[in-house]
């Protein structure tokens, strides 16, 4: 098993709040890795640090064998990490198709001059972007919604669209921040199938989720954060029985 992402002693604080305290974890290529923890545990902060949205205060990250430069988010995306957001961030006034087309930005290179002259290369590239985006909409199961304004999609479809847009960047690691939040049971089942398909097709998945059944059924390994600290990391069945995890969720102090 090869490690895809190795985070070592990641620290992040906001003023007095230590949102991440020396968090280390390793995500292997090809797995679905769960990140759970009570509200405010630091899960989203961890995402923001590895995707370059926040600058970390300590620790280092190795991604695909290379130290990850997280000075700016677009470089992280370039390196192969794509993400979705806990409170969906779509380009509201653009159509679903255009949203995914934006995701191709990095993997295409049309310049100002190319666009103005509409050279053969640029036309071919545009057609390829459109075809790829159309294909991805079908892949996540919203092929019929290509022309719909992102803001008018249903909640579940918006989550799917965000995944399609992230996949458009051709990531090695897809990081999903609570993708099932607000979904009903049917939608969650569909999402689960989608995440499994993504993994089968070769993309490693990092998943933050509160839905315990989804995590337990889907993830190969799970890490638990509590008050910015990693308190457990193992296969779901073991993590579920870990007394520290149980007390973190129930709010009971753990007696050593």
């Amino acid at each position, binding site marked *: 098993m090869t490690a895809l992402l190795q985070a070592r002693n990641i620290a992040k604080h906001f003023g007095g709040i230590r949102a991440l305290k020396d968090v280390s974890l390793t995500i292997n290529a090809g797995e679905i890795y769960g990140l759970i923890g009570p509200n405010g545990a630091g899960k989203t902060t961890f995402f923001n640090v590895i995707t*370059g949205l926040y600058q970390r205060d300590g620790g280092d990250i190795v991604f695909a064998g290379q130290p990850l430069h997280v000075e700016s988010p*677009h470089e992280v995306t370039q390196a192969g990490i794509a993400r979705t957001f806990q409170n969906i961030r779509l380009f509201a*006034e653009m159509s679903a198709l255009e949203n995914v087309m934006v995701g191709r930005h990095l*993997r295409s290179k049309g310049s*100002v001059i190319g666009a103005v002259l509409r050279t053969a290369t640029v036309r071919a590239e545009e057609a390829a972007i459109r075809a790829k985006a159309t294909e991805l909409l079908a892949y996540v199961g919203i092929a019929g919604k290509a022309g719909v304004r992102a803001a008018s999609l249903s909640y579940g479809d918006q989550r799917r669209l965000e995944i399609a847009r992230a996949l458009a960047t051709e990531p090695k690691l897809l990081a999903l921040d609570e993708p099932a939040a607000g979904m009903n049971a049917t939608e969650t089942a569909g999402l689960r199938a989608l995440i499994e398909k993504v993994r089968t097709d070769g993309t490693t998945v990092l998943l933050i989720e509160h839905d315990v059944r989804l995590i337990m059924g889907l993830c190969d390994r799970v890490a638990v954060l509590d008050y910015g600290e990693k308190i457990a990391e193992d296969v779901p069945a073991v993590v579920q029985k870990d007394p520290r995890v149980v007390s973190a969720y129930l709010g009971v102090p753990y007696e050593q």
Partner: protein
Amino acid sequence: MMQDQKKKVLGIALIGVALAVLPFVIGMGFGNAWIRMLDFALLYIMLALGLNIVVGFAGLLDLGYIAFYAVGAYIYALLASPHFGLHWPLWAILPVGALIAGIFGVLLGTPTLKLRGDYLAIVTLGFGEIIRIFLNNLNAPVNITNGPKGIAGIDPLAKNIEIFGYPLHSLYLIYYLFVALALLIVFVTMRLENSRLGRAWVAIREDEIAAKACGINTRNVKLLAFAMGASFGGVAGGLFAGFQQFVSPESFGLFESIMVLCMVVLGGMGNIPGVILGAVVLTVLPELFRQWAGPMQMAVFGQTYIDPESMRLLLFGIALILVMRFRPMGLLPSSRRKAEFEHAEEGAQA
């Protein structure tokens, strides 16, 4: 498909003919003053389309846009007037003006990259004023801009000529020059709108963090928007200088920036036909009122109660309020969604 192609060609041909005869119709009907106004409308179209890239596409509220118009105008004034004794030809000056204005666009953009909304508006407003104040004061120790007096005697864009014995006023030639450049700018803007970069601009407008997460280098793409918008402003400024044959800092105040912004907003931010309509309406209507408000009051009341100039501003304000109340998206809102929808249908049929 063929049908569509034919319709498109026919449409373009009709617009071409209309644009070609327009000045003659207007000239015969209303006189040269109106052709002059038409020329001004074209200048404002170019300006508004430039600002539309920054504000309409990329969503960066720029209140100092007129500074780039000023840069273009002074470049023309310095390179084609007795002031330095230089008399460069138009075709050589315009690219220089566009380039230098574009550089100014990057200079303004760089320190404001982290700012958005109100903060960006305040900083750009300051930038616009700084440029104007510079132009006002760069007459000492070395006299570059001739200060508040401005630069006069600028080489004209065109002279009156005779065609087959018929005299043709220079305003007509200037009109054709402006139409050609305005069409070029419309063309470039349209091509950019439906490109990888156009999408990146709109993505930044809609959600900058998500745009970054999609791998867009927001710094470069924003600077490009500033540079493109500024260079259009620079071209329009150069034409303005040659048209008026006189420039002074007074022409480039905050009110002008706001006026151009109003054209963009009133017409329909981000939508090219909307912005063009906004520019035409806001050039022509105020002028109409200025010309008619006085005589009309005389005819009705026998004397002038309200000075036409202040009435013009009053009506301008009322018009803006009405548009914002009844058509908050502008007169012609963006058809982005509609176009995309049609495309999807087309795809489904194929």
